[in-house]
């Protein structure tokens, strides 16, 4: 799996025997001794954190599936039963629900890390694209899973999202009804969503395998974006990064545990404690927080189809990013101008999230009032326009700023090697 010479030596007859037939122990040993750049910082621990979260979600998910009933008459009740009667259900159910939020939190950090340090650039394009695929399937899994408790937000979220497919010209309505298995979200929908929600995490796990394979094939990027040259530039994955990842995981678990034990509902919506009602829409339908930026992009456009295309485009643009960024320098550490645009990009992603949570016509700020059709209306910026500005920047960053900057920006001087960057003048004395 990895691209470094194997140092594993089977010591005993049985391990030698196995190694000749299935070198699985060798694979694990090589994984543990994989030479990693010595300068990886804590932003590089999120890959490990995400693996832990995927495992946690799959385990708690399988457990919940043992108790959950995917039927419109019993789904809501079965979740209540899990929380009230199933041994430790009160712990496992919030672990899974909060776990979804934690998963997205970690994946966003992981993605911004990749953006900042240029981890998508050659030769890591395929690694990046697999990552984008994982993210896309995560979004699908998160959405499908949110339908299962069969609360009001589950039901109306499913109605709205499947409505996206109805916007496809000509075949939209048949496509939507095919997805739903009926005229509206109903038992058939719930059953297939459950089946797919159970399936997709294993697809993600498979893609994670490919992701790690690609990572070990081309080697890890690092904060200075300079490929390791000598053995001195690297450290064995174990124990150096196992202990560092382990520490970061435990710190992340503290945040996770805080939500599970003390604020299990803080990241959800009160409306999802109301059983789904096909006759009544809640006054404010809002997706889960991790979808809010895309929801804002969707609503930034007054046209249904155009809004959906733009939202899809916001994800597709990530797939082609390796070819949009024309700079040869990977890390933003050496790109003073690009760095500023990057932080503006992060800022606007937060702004999009904020816009997604607010009502479009509400005002961000007002500057006086004016007469419109004989009525005084507040003047200023409303959330629709704020989301338009942010959406514009989101696309401009990928489609204009990164392509042009690569050609015009003058990067800072870069060190020759990781060791030089780490040790500076001490390069000859300090390392033992």
């Amino acid at each position: 799996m990895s691209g470094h010479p194997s140092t594993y030596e089977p010591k005993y007859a049985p391990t030698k025997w196995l190694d000749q037939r299935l070198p699985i122990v060798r694979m694990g040993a090589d994984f543990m001794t994989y030479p990693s750049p010595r300068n990886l910082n804590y932003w590089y621990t999120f890959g490990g954190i995400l693996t832990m979260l995927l495992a946690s979600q799959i385990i708690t998910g399988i457990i919940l599936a043992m108790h959950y009933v995917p039927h419109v008459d019993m789904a809501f009740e079965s979740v209540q039963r899990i929380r009230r009667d199933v041994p430790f259900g009160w712990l496992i159910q919030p672990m899974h629900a909060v776990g979804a939020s934690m998963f997205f939190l970690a994946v966003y950090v992981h993605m911004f890390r990749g953006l900042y340090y240029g981890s998508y650039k050659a030769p890591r394009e395929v690694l990046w694209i697999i990552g984008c695929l994982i993210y896309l399937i995560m979004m699908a899994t998160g959405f499908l899973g949110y339908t299962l408790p069969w609360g009001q937000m589950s039901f109306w979220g499913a109605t709205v999202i499947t409505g996206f497919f109805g916007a496809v010209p000509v075949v939209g309505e048949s496509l939507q009804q095919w997805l739903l298995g009926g005229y509206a979200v109903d038992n058939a929908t719930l059953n297939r969503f459950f089946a797919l929600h159970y399936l997709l995490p294993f697809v993600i796990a498979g893609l994670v395998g490919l992701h790690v394979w690609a990572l070990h094939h081309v080697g890890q990027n690092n904060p200075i974006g300079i490929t390791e040259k000598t053995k001195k530039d690297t450290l064995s994955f174990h124990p150096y990064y196992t202990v560092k990842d382990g520490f970061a995981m435990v710190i992340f678990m503290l945040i996770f545990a805080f939500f599970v034990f003390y604020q299990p509902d803080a990241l959800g919506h009160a409306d999802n404690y109301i059983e789904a009602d096909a006759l009544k829409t809640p006054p404010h339908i809002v997706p889960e927080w991790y979808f809010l930026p895309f929801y804002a992009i969707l609503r930034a456009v007054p046209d249904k189809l155009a809004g959906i295309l733009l939202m899809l485009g916001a994800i597709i643009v990530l797939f082609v990013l390796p070819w949009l960024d024309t700079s040869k320098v990977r890390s933003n550490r050496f790109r003073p101008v690009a760095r500023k645009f990057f932080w503006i990009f992060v800022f606007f992603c937060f702004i999009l999230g904020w816009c997604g949570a607010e009502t479009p016509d509400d005002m961000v700020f007002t500057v006086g009032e004016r007469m419109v059709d004989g009525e005084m209306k507040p003047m200023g910026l409303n959330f629709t326009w704020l989301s338009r500005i942010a959406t514009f920047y989101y696309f401009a960053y990928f489609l204009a700023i990164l392509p042009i900057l690569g050609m015009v920006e003058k990067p800072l001087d870069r060190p020759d090697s990781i060791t030089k960057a780490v040790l500076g003048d001490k390069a000859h004395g300090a390392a033992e």
Partner: protein
Amino acid sequence: MTLNMKTALIAGSVVLVAAASTLAYAAGGGGTGDYKMEHKHWHFKGAFGTYDTAAAQRGYQVYREVCASCHQLKHLSFRHLGDKGAPFYDKNYPNPNDNPYVKNFAADWSIEDIDGETGDILERPGVPADKFPAIYPNEAAARAGNGGGLPPDLSVIVAARNGGADYIYNLLVAYNAKKPADIELTPGLYYNPVMDGGKISMAPPLSDELVEYADGTPATVEQMAADVTEFLAWSSDPKLEQRKATGLMAMLYLSILAILLWFSYKRVWKDVEH
């Protein structure tokens, strides 16, 4: 530069959390007219908060004698009242089915069942394993009996409303607020500033001395509202005490493990510049 990135991300998260909490708070505020939501200090708030057992017990009485004429608790069984962390838990009866309070409460309700001999539908007294029965035979009957309004199930009502316990409490005590002139009420609707739009189909359910508390607590509207809210908060989140207790252990454990890992990390990396 790393510092730069950290600061920015931390600042970003702070902004996001602040925005989310104002949003949640604003949504929880509700209210029309001049009514000011009263934010009570609930016994179950905070990292170590537990349910006020006496209040929750009185709250069950209010539910039984007042709310239960229209509102069901469909996700609850009688036995839940005697579970650990529940209002009528008694450590002498680890199995709530044996708890005499629970048995009495269950027997106080009549449960529809089928006569094993004749197949006729009959009514029998409840047992702890029974679920709280439906108040109305079906939704149409519930609406017909309440001027078209559907009394919501109360099992998870505190979790199902923005503002939680404060919302329920204020809803129950806010009927006396002065109605703004621009709200027009059709027959069967009442003014309640806590409801979205200020209109509610539930008639004011509480009045002073409506129930008689066994422990001698004066049954004011505010007292009954607070008590029944305490009870309903438990009903929405019956494992809260267990969760917080486990949470304390989990947080302590993770902190210790984090410290140990930190020292291990320092050891492993002590000779490596990075």
